[in-house]
């Protein structure tokens, strides 16, 4: 077994990296609102980064374990208690069957992740275990957790190598002010110069209309040249829609796949965790950056995650490679570089094609 939900909290869902490949059919990708914290939790417990874990919102759940497993809690600080004693965040911990994990109200941030070694056992739907609450798909019957729910572990563990090192620092930002860096467009030309100045110069408040679909902001009206309507086009996570009202809406994990409102800018991918951890009342300022800078910031974030993953989870040097049987033969030097060999590997139900080539010996 795994965990029994004694108290579901406000909005607790099973998430994984997201459901990709079905947007052209109208399926929202879903996935975690703060993917960085989510992936850190999985790395800490030795999982592939996008494996199924829990996302809790504002007020967390109380979970009773019916089987031993190693867990890690990351993201917003819900002051977790394990059997009534404070549980350190951002650290792998062995939890024994019968123990109770209680997450409380978030002291900072908005969303907290609980990863379990081996992941959570809910059915794969279109290649993903992520819950889409709006689409009623994935996770536990396409809905948030409810009292009495039971979720099994896929492959629980009672020990992991380097257990003492499985901790990191990942604090939530202090204060209420946040800067979101954006790429302008694709419909920035639908706004007057004054409208663009307002958007980039004025503060916006996060309202209570903030869910997994999107975040409505309140502040000075952004002036259109005509109005906020376009022929509906495709959407990405982080798109900032400005309908004719002139007030921006940031589209998030469970956004619709198409939209008919002007999009003034898009939050860069590296800053999506920032908006994912905002709380109603926080104040946002937008800053325009070039695409090249956004790519650099994304690369730096991936490098940090890779470093943590390799430090904790790289196979020990004496371990035998598990794919030894499929290793290509060694080619004589005269044939360098060697022929390209293609392999299909299946990870989390997704099929990847990978190619390898001997380039030096």
């Amino acid at each position: 077994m795994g965990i029994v939900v004694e108290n579901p909290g406000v909005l607790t869902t099973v998430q994984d990296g997201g459901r990709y490949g079905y947007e052209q059919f109208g399926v929202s990708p879903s996935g975690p609102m703060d993917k960085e914290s989510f992936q850190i939790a999985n790395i800490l417990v030795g999982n592939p980064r996008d494996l199924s874990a829990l996302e809790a919102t504002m007020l967390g759940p109380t979970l009773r374990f019916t089987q031993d497993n190693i867990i890690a809690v990351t993201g917003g600080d819900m002051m977790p208690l394990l059997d009534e004693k404070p549980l350190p965040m951002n650290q792998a911990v062995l939890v024994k069957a019968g123990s109770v994990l209680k997450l409380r109200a978030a002291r900072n941030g908005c969303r907290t992740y609980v990863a379990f070694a081996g992941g959570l056992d809910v059915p794969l739907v279109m290649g993903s275990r992520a819950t889409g609450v709006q689409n009623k798909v994935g996770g536990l019957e396409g809905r948030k957790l409810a009292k009495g729910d039971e979720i099994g572990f896929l492959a629980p563990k009672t020990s992991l190598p380097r257990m003492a090192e499985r901790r990191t620092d990942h604090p939530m930002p202090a204060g209420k002010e946040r800067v979101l860096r954006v790429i302008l467009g694709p419909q920035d030309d639908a706004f007057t110069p004054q409208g663009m100045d307002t958007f980039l110069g004025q503060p916006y408040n996060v309202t209570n209309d903030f869910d997994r679909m999107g975040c409505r902001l309140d502040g000075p009206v952004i002036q259109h040249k005509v109005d906020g309507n376009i022929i509906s086009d495709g959407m990405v996570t982080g798109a900032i829609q400005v309908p004719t009202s002139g007030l921006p809406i940031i589209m998030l994990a469970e956004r619709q796949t198409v939209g008919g409102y002007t999009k003034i800018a898009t939050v860069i991918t590296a800053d999506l965790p920032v908006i994912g951890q905002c709380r109603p009342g926080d104040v946002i300022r937008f800053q325009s950056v070039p695409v090249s800078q956004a790519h650099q910031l994304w690369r730096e974030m991936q490098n940090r995650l890779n470093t943590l993953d390799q430090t904790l989870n790289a196979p020990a040097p004496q371990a035998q490679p598990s794919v030894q049987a499929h290793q290509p033969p060694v080619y004589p030097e005269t044939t360098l570089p060697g022929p390209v060999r293609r392999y299909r590997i299946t990870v989390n139900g997704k099929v990847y094609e990978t190619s390898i080539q001997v380039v030096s010996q």
Partner: protein
Amino acid sequence: MYTLHDVGDQALLVEFENEISMEVNRKVVALKRALEEQRLPGIGELIPTYRSLVIHYDPLTADLDQLKEAIDQGVKHLDLSSLPKSIVTEIPVLYEGEYALDLEEIARIEGKTEEEIIRIHSQSDYYVYMLGFAPGHPYTARFENPFSFKRRETPRVRIPGGSIVVQLGLSDIIPFDQPCGWNIIGTTPILACDYRKKNPFLLKAGQWIHHVPVDKAEFMDIKRQVELGCYQPKTYEKEG
């Protein structure tokens, strides 16, 4: 010819003419096919809409210059004649009683009999411009406005999945229960989205649908087959 925009740091948007027409939409479908066939490294999902294509990419593995060049070449050599023959999917529709809540009102607004309204709705194919809003939800239209009415004055809070709703030249299949302000002309027993299936989606952008009137007995029979998962929608290649 086309304009290219960044959509954040992991997607591009290719826009064709700013209009809703099959000519423009077929360019979108053709460019999508051309890019899919090239299988460039680091390219993610392609999302076609009325007049534009969103192209997701992974900045760590995609070569953005190569992608932009492929888009440019793709647009320059767009070959609409090479598009495969369009598929028409038949949508059985029961236009009756509680399954066609607004049929009577539609007939009254249009000054026609219910039989005439049914004949008008089922005589022409509708083109599927794109899917969106909800999983499997098609945006479909034909090229004249058979009806004069738009939305209802007050939207309904919830209409059942399977409802066929219309306004002007548009006709949509509602996949799941949802709020809706359109008039309900009938109900189909088949599912626009069935998560039990390997490919859950009935339709795809660039295809066509044709509504076929069925009676209550046929409706219930198809509904049973759909529930058992053994119903095969009728499809055929579009003429001409």
